[in-house]
């Protein structure tokens, strides 16, 4: 999945750069969050990639604003949960048909991973509301 391009025209300082990148990545994550509700493999995959991009951006800009680390933490857990669901999807796609018991177990684990991701996404959204990226953007505009 190609990343949403970040428009950086007029950016002069590190905070302005952080604000533009984070703003774009948050928007991307929210746009793809529907995949979590649908619970299908493709939608979950795209959402996971978007979460990963946002997490890396949050961690990268934490040297400008340390509290971004706190926002990144639930995204790391969310990425793990979605990754574990993805691994089970891959294994289920190549599992011999005769292995019904194993298939049943993997499918159950997969659903549990997605349930965990739903809870983590709710927590991550709460943190995003207080995300200092909004502040960084404002600071850049109020010099």
């Amino acid at each position, binding site marked *: 999945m190609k*990343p949403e*391009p*970040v*428009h*950086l*025209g007029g*950016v*002069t*300082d*590190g*905070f*302005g*750069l952080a604000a533009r*990148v984070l703003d*774009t*990545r948050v928007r991307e994550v*929210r746009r793809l969050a529907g995949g979590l509700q649908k619970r299908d493999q493709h939608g979950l995959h795209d959402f996971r990639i978007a979460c*990963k*991009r946002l997490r*890396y*951006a949050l961690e*990268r800009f934490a040297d*400008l*604003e340390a509290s971004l680390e706190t926002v990144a933490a639930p995204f790391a857990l969310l990425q793990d949960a979605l990754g574990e669901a993805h*691994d*089970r999807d*891959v*294994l289920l796609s*190549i*599992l*011999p048909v*005769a*292995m*019904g*018991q*194993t298939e049943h*177990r*993997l499918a159950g*684990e997969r659903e549990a991973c997605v349930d965990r991701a739903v809870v983590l996404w709710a927590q991550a*959204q709460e943190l995003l*509301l207080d995300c*200092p990226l*909004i*502040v*960084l*953007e*404002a*600071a*850049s505009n*109020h*010099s």
Partner: protein
Amino acid sequence: MGRRGDLTSNRILREGRFKYFRRTLARNERPPAMKWLKRAVEKERRALEGARRRFVSKSTEERLHSVRTAGRRFRSLLEDVAELAPSAKLLRRVKRAAEQTDAARDATIILRLLENSVDPSERHLAEPLLAELSARESEATRLAHKRLRRARFTG
């Protein structure tokens, strides 16, 4: 009450929730974008190059994972700032390095998962797939090692 996602930066600032941060971000405290960016790119480049060297010296599962993680972080940075600091050639190299490790990592993960989740009553049915994944893991790791030996991410 509106949806929480509808809160805009202006509204939050009007409500005065972030006064502390606004005070701390004086103009002279802000690093110039290009200076910060140059430092960040160099940091990620060194991390990937270091992970690559460690994997080439000894190709373990953990070291392969480190190469992939460092590569993803670097790629993410290059994509995020492409408009400000285009580096198509470097981005291609980083993407290629990731692709060269995909097969090895996939085989390892799926092999471990199958080993841990196979129902005891179906173990005999899983044996051919376990053997195939094990062979795929060895071959893909060998190939990743061979290709990463030649890869360079330095300037």
